[in-house]
């Protein structure tokens, strides 16, 4: 009897345990429930191309439920593109700083001559600065949109960034098409002076004198300036066309074209921003007297002889140089007689 009682007790305890063990097995095996949607969603989602279906909505891409290429584009935008942009801009900034620190500002050899010559007309300077202002606005707003997630959100938080992003996007989209107009103005006005001429190759082979500190003979524009001009025009046109495709999505272009346009737009813009940093550096901190050409239209004769000796010679042959006093008069400034006398005596 005692034995039977112990057996019954063990049976009582063991039965639930066996039940738990059986449940554990069930859990490990999983419960299979027939879901008719599974295969459908697998077909829709787990593939590397867009599956076309049918829809009552008649518009571009409306028959595609999920476009896997969109994921690829999003990964490219937040990953590759941001890395490419960061590395490019950091390298360019570093190179320019290095050049400034090691070589410093390129000065006019022998100082100013006291005679100046007209380099850019009023219209050319208006066209240049119009393009410059619009380009800088677009570059700043574009970079704010690109670096929003990795840089601006940690700095400003989501709420302020969403406001900045909205403002940047609207500003970028509205001002963007004006860039094309100002680019065409610059293209038309400066194209004849930016065509390859004999002697340009020699300038290139000598590195433009940038690193050796020896100046190389050139005409109105040297090959470096011509290269900048054509990079600006070509990259600018690529940016403009891809930008128009992006900002006007009502011409039947699908997502793939938009994504491709965005990639092309961003890469060309980063390249142009990087090269423009070099242009801005060389025209301001990098070279003495260059910015004056775009501010007043006139440059010093010595500057011209240093950087564009062939053009300077042409101007001298045609007697196109004027004295700095005459230049001051043309600018509506009072002439400093004492400095003039000192210069003549010295």
């Amino acid at each position: 009897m005692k034995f039977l009682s112990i057996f019954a007790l063990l049976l009582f305890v063991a039965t639930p345990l066996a039940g738990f063990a059986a449940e554990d097995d069930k859990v490990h095996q999983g419960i299979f429930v027939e879901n008719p949607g599974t295969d459908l969603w697998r077909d829709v989602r787990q593939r590397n191309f867009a599956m076309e279906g049918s829809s009552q909505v008649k518009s571009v891409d409306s028959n595609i439920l999920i476009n896997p290429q969109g994921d690829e584009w999003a990964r490219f935008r937040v990953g590759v593109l941001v890395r490419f942009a960061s590395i490019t801009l950091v390298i360019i900034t570093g190179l320019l700083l290095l050049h400034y620190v090691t070589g410093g500002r390129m000065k006019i050899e022998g100082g100013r001559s006291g005679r100046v010559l007209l380099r850019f007309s009023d219209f050319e300077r208006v066209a240049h600065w119009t393009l410059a202002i619009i380009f800088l606005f677009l570059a700043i707003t574009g970079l704010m949109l690109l670096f929003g997630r990795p840089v601006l959100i940690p700095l400003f938080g989501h709420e302020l960034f969403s406001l900045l992003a909205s403002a940047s996007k609207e500003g970028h989209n509205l001002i963007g098409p004006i860039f094309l107009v100002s680019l065409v103005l610059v293209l038309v006005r400066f194209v004849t002076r930016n065509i390859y001429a004999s002697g340009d190759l020699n300038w290139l082979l000598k590195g433009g004198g940038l690193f050796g500190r020896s100046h190389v003979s050139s005409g109105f524009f040297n090959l470096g300036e011509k290269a900048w001009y054509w990079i600006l025009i070509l990259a600018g046109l690529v940016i403009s066309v891809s930008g128009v495709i992006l900002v006007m999505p009502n011409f039947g272009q699908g997502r793939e074209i938009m994504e491709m346009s965005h990639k092309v737009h961003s890469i060309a813009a980063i390249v142009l921003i990087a090269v423009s940093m070099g242009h801005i550096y060389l025209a301001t901190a990098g070279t003495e007297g260059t910015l004056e050409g775009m501010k007043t239209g006139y440059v010093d004769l010595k500057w011209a002889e240093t950087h564009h000796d062939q053009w300077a010679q042409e101007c001298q042959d045609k007697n196109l140089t004027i004295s700095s006093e005459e230049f001051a008069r043309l600018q509506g400034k009072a002439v400093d007689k004492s400095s003039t006398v000192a210069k003549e005596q010295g």
Partner: protein
Amino acid sequence: MGSIIDGSLWYFSLTVFVIGVVWNLVRIVFGKRKADFSIPRDSAVAGALRTLISRFIPDRHMLPRISLQVVAGYMFHLGLFVLLFFAAPHVRFLDEHILGFGWSPAPHWLFIVSAQFAFLGLIMLWLHRVINVVSRLISDRGDHIAAILTFVVMLTGCLALLETFNELRLLHRLSVELWLIYFPFSRLMHAFTFVPSRMFTGAWFGRRGVGS
């Protein structure tokens, strides 16, 4: 801050603008002038109206020298006119807050294109003012403030285009209010004074039988 911009500052700026503009115009139109004793050779009224219209067309001898100002000037002024009076948000605002009635706004694409024309025109005009020696010498601080303030108004409007963020709308409205306060004391008054100015000149010449 938002309530001040939407409330008291708005009413203050509107009051300054209206009183300032009316006062300036009354002063110009009804101000004391020397009596004209010349023998009338032709109609002064016809001359006034003729000059009011003819000044819209640039002189053909001058045109090659002023083509930039003419083209950019028309781009800016026509763009701004469409932007100001036919942009849907502005028509709605005028209807709800000032006039009590509205009209059909321009389509969105026209609104955007006119804004682009206005921006490009204003930038080029201001650059010409700074770059061209003669323009620079006849310009004073007030001209630059007027141009920059107008640009800021347009820019803040452009940034608030999505009409989603109240802060951006307030920024635009604040810049408009500063513009309205500055308007009567500045060259911005030419938006109104160009009419009496041209008409007085035209009447003066017209009375003497001189074309202008």
